[in-house]
């Protein structure tokens, strides 16, 4: 007797087989000694289980049990969720963080704008040269030699310029001495 036949015998004992197969199992149990013994054991086990299966009973009526669950759910929904306690330090940092971000962006914008504008101004002002005669007696001529990258200030004596308009003369008191 193979495993399939054993399973079918169990199903037959439980009354789960169709008529055709039930007859086959009945014939098998009648003809085969081992099949008959197995059927006997299965019937004993079935009887024992059926007679000793524990029966669980609700201590209260099902309606009362489910109404308790519903009331508990409704109570839980009504209680507001308690907000977690936040320290003042954490709150301050939460406020400071976005402020710092905004300040940083603003600061970098101002700096980059000022650098940009400064560059533009510098380019324009770079070539501006201011010359000033601080002595009434001395005149000056200034020019730039582009080829030699040289800014020249030539000084001359004003008094001698008026005396000799055709030619500039050396200063009386040469600073070279």
């Amino acid at each position, binding site marked *: 007797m193979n495993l399939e036949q054993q399973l079918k015998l169990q199903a037959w004992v439980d009354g789960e087989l169709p008529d055709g197969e039930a007859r086959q199992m009945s014939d098998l149990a009648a003809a085969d000694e081992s099949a008959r013994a197995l059927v006997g054991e299965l019937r004993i086990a079935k009887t024992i289980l059926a007679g000793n299966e524990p029966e669980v009973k609700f201590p209260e009526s099902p309606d009362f049990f489910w109404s308790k669950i519903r009331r508990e759910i409704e109570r839980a929904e009504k209680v507001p969720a308690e907000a977690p306690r936040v320290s003042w330090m954490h709150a301050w940092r939460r406020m400071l963080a976005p402020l710092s971000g905004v300040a940083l962006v603003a600061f970098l914008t101002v*700096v980059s704008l000022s650098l940009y504008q400064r560059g533009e101004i510098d380019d324009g002002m770079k070539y501006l040269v201011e010359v000033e005669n601080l002595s009434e007696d001395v005149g000056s001529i200034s020019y730039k030699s582009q080829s030699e990258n040289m*800014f020249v200030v030539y000084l001359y004596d004003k008094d001698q310029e008026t005396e000799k308009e055709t030619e500039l003369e050396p200063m009386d008191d040469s*600073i070279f001495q």
Partner: protein
Amino acid sequence: MSHRLFFGRLPRLFLVSLLLAGSTAQTFAANLKLEAKLIWGTNDEKSPNPDHKEVDPATKEKLRKVFKWKNYFAVNRVTKPVPSRSSNRFELSKDCIIEIKELEGPKVEVKLIGKGKEVHKTTLTIDKGQSVVYSGDDKNQSAWFVIITELSEK
């Protein structure tokens, strides 16, 4: 990035940016190292003063291209730093002093002081390789020059 890291890092980033920007602004202030040379120009082959040395060929060639004199002799040379927003005096001879002040820009104010009197003032930007030259005629068809240049190393 976690919340904690975000809130912890942003204020620190702000402070670092602040310091960085401060150092950037500081770069606009220039510490200059300048050289001032007093030179005598003449058509004579030699200077009557044996202490005068002929200038180097490059300077001589440069001056010859701008001025009419053939020979140029170095009388004195002074090298000094000019700290940012400060001034320094370059005493080239008993009667010739150059006062240089570093200004915002960065620009420099060059003041020529002759015999104790302020004679002339020029305010300009000195680029690398550029020279500022004060000049004037001297006796016997000669001339004096004060050449100011910024040195590379600071």
